[in-house]
């Protein structure tokens, strides 16, 4: 059974949602405190949403120095599947595991609403089982979600198929409507929307399932990298 580590920083608040979603898909999820330095035995790692270290200074700025992040870096470099959701995405960019930065939303509004995403690449652990151009309804819940990067980085993301999800109707001013990106190998993915909150039509949408199912099949796939 796939064993997923869900990293908990002081101030994380979506770890139970993430763990519950993993459980629904047949995986075992364990919460991993941020002081952990060894991630041996996990098949995949999730950095969940929330306000790690209170989001003081900048979202993710202090979390990046949490002891666990060195282990997350090693896990990622070894080809392990790493997913950063919302605040987790911000942590991954601050840690340099993904390029660019997340800025305050255009309009300075905290956004909490369903958004329609478009799958723009299957070359990642999060989107491998989704269909290209598929539309997914998944909620966002953030204040600093405007993806920002320089021209060279953006061109590189486009050229290498690393923009995996875009907003159909850009809610926050993200460059190129970007909702989620992957690293060069496709094993590290960050996105602002919350697929773990779109697991059941009873709660509005179950479109998050195809993404998290992809993520769970990734540990096997990433071994072949």
């Amino acid at each position, binding site marked *: 059974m796939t064993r997923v580590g869900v990293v908990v920083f002081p101030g994380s608040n979506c770890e139970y949602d993430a763990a519950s979603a993993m459980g629904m898909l047949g995986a075992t999820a364990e919460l991993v405190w941020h002081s952990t330095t060894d991630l041996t035995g996990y098949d995949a790692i999730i950095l969940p949403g929330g306000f790690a270290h209170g989001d003081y*200074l*900048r979202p993710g*700025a202090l979390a990046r*120095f949490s002891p666990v992040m060195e282990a997350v870096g090693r896990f990622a470099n070894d080809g392990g599947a790493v997913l950063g959701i919302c605040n987790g995405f911000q942590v991954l*960019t*601050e840690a340099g595991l993904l*390029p*660019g*930065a997340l*800025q*305050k*939303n*255009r*309009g*300075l509004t905290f956004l909490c609403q369903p958004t329609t995403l478009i799958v723009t690449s299957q070359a990642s652990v999060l989107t491998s089982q989704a269909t290209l151009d598929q539309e997914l309804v998944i909620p966002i819940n953030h204040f600093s979600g*405007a993806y*920002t*990067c*320089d021209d060279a980085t953006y061109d590189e993301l486009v050229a290498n198929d690393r923009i995996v999800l875009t907003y159909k109707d850009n809610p926050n*001013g993200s460059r190129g409507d970007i909702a989620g990106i992957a690293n060069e190998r496709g094993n590290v993915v960050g996105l602002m929307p919350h697929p773990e909150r779109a697991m059941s039509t009873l709660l509005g949408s179950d479109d998050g399932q195809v993404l998290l199912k992809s993520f769970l099949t990734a540990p096997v796939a990433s071994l072949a990298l």
Partner: protein
Amino acid sequence: MNYSVIVDVSLRQGIADPEGATIERALPALGFYGVTDVKAGKSFRMMIDADSEAEALERATALAERLLSNPVIEDATARLSGVHAS
């Protein structure tokens, strides 16, 4: 010596500054006219125990680049604001 240092962090040229823009738009409503190019930023004050002004500024710059700013979107500059015997 104890050096009193101020680190200013501002958004890099060309990076959208919704906070500065919002403040700028609010000014005319308060009767402040002719104010343009408002930029929002952060300022940090700290005491650094160092042997020289150059060393204090060097250390402040290093910590500003490592932690206080995100070089992807922000610039950081350190300046001296006072010296005290430690």
